């Protein structure tokens, strides 16, 4: 027993280091000035941590002004960072809506596919997940064309466009995941509930949902995170800075001819915070005590 405990402890330490070291290094770099970052050997502990990079992200205009007065010349700074707070808010809104759409649509669909025998179910299921087989680079142009005219709606350059694209991108995978999850859960209790006179919807919401909570939570986290990090499609279906998402703005910051490493790292640190809160909220429900009890 003790040997197992030591094993778990060692493994946990390795895992924590694996995840944390690059993050700590990112944090470290974000607190250094550019000359400090570009020095060998690298600075491990910033002698006097600078907050300029963070200041720059949250109040770009005044940070640029201060830098001008200080040195009298304007270095190449990614002024696009002034849209960062707005992009962060956009990304949070989009991510939350994408979670809602996915949990709703994928749960309903996978329940219908898994539990009800109907002609064409196999075909419809395959059709629902086939879209994910094509590399993004090949479908980005048709996606763009669809967004220009989605059933008569002009959605280009709106948050709705990004939501739509991200939902279309995540639903297939999530249907497959929930289908797999549901097919491991015996249908006995559902049958019992149906005999007791529950309708399909009642059975799904009252009996099935509590049992498959870990699967749904996983689907929710996946939807949010895929949307949160997605650059390419969000870039293609938006045009004005007002509707850009966080990864796009960060991508622009990185695409400057003079790459401001510190500002980029500060962007990464700030960008991960909202997502971390979302993961923390959802993770609680990932391990469900209900599973073991309900399946008996």
């Amino acid at each position: 027993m003790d040997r197992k405990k030591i094993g778990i402890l060692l493994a946990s330490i390795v895992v924590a280091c694996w995840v944390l070291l690059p993050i700590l290094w990112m944090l470290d770099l974000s607190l250094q000035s550019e000359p400090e970052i570009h020095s060998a050997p690298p600075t491990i502990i910033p002698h006097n941590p600078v907050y300029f990079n963070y200041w720059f992200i949250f109040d770009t205009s005044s940070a640029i002004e201060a830098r001008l007065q200080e040195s009298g010349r304007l270095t190449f700074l990614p002024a696009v960072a002034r849209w960062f707070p707005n992009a962060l808010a956009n990304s949070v809104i989009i991510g939350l809506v994408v979670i809602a759409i996915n949990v709703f649509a994928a749960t309903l669909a996978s329940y219908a596919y898994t539990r009800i025998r109907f002609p064409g179910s196999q075909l419809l299921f395959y059709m629902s997940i086939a879209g994910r087989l094509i590399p993004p680079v090949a479908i980005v142009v048709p996606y763009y064309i669809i967004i220009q005219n989605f059933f008569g709606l002009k959605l280009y350059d709106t948050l709705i466009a990004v939501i739509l694209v991200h939902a279309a991108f995540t639903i297939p995978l999530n249907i497959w995941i929930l289908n797999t999850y549901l097919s491991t859960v015996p249908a006995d209790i559902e049958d019992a509930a149906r005999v007791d006179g529950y309708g399909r919807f009642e059975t799904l919401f009252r009996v099935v949902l509590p049992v498959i909570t870990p699967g749904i939570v996983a689907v929710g986290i996946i939807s949010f995170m895929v949307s949160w990090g997605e650059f390419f499609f969000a870039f293609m279906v938006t045009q004005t800075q007002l509707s850009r998402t966080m990864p796009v703005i960060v991508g622009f910051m990185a695409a400057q001819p003079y790459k401001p490493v510190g500002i980029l790292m500060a962007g990464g640190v700030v960008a991960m915070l909202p997502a971390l809160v979302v993961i923390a909220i959802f993770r609680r429900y990932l391990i469900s005590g209900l599973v073991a009890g309900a399946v008996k």
Partner: protein
Amino acid sequence: MLKEDIRFIILALIPSLLFVLPFTFYPIGYAIYVSTQRYDLKYPEEIRFIGFDNFIQVINSYYFTDSVLATVIFAVISVPLTVLISLGLALLLSQKFRGVGFLQWLVLVPWAIPLVVSSAVWKWIFDANYGIFNAALKGLGVIDSYIPWLSLKWPAMLILVLAFLWVQLPLPTLLFLAGIQSIPQELYEAALIDGAREWSRFKSITFTWLKPFMLIVAVYTTLMALWTFDIVYVITAGGPGNFTAVISYYTFSEMFTFLNFGRASALSFMVVLVSIGLIIAYFRALRIGRLRLRA
């Protein structure tokens, strides 16, 4: 079939199909159409049907062999590693010990960082002059002078694999973890009574139960590995030489640098064919006849 069931099926499928179908069939049709056309936006007046010429041009191009090789090397190293490590992580995280909640959260954290930034972090760690890796090795006395890791073939490839693992592990781990939650505890209790050892309990219960999840993870990770673009673009830009220039790197440059949509679509199609072949192989390997819709 009951009337109520029909009504339920229709209501339950409409939301997902509304999102999925337009974004599946139009893109597939478009990709097929474009890949058979001379579709070069530099010469928009010359768009016409050319059959399989795009495919032939792509196969005969200067980059084809090298990029296939780079992609294969990258995928062969990174896919099995991702599957195995994420399975191990999920097993660790499904144990009961103090701090496991924090660790579950921590494992998902790399996901929260924009890919551009996490790739830049890895690039910066291994930077020849300012990187902490070189400084650490020199400090420990392992090397005498700084080594330009990203300019060396295999180190560059392995750094890409490291970065891929770092950003891609959260999703498979989460899936396995959710899968493990659905294993009925009675199975383990029964196995314990039968006197099964830990390894055989793992093999006959956990692994068997997780097979369908393993399939999703293998398919997803393979697609991600075959499509890898961002980390290559940021960390090595295809170098040294063309050693890490994977297929998607050329798909992007055909599409957005040379604006030759026809060839980019042809390349993508080849990737799709390879993915389908691999998916079938995974079905066979995991002895899953076909996608089961029901238990």
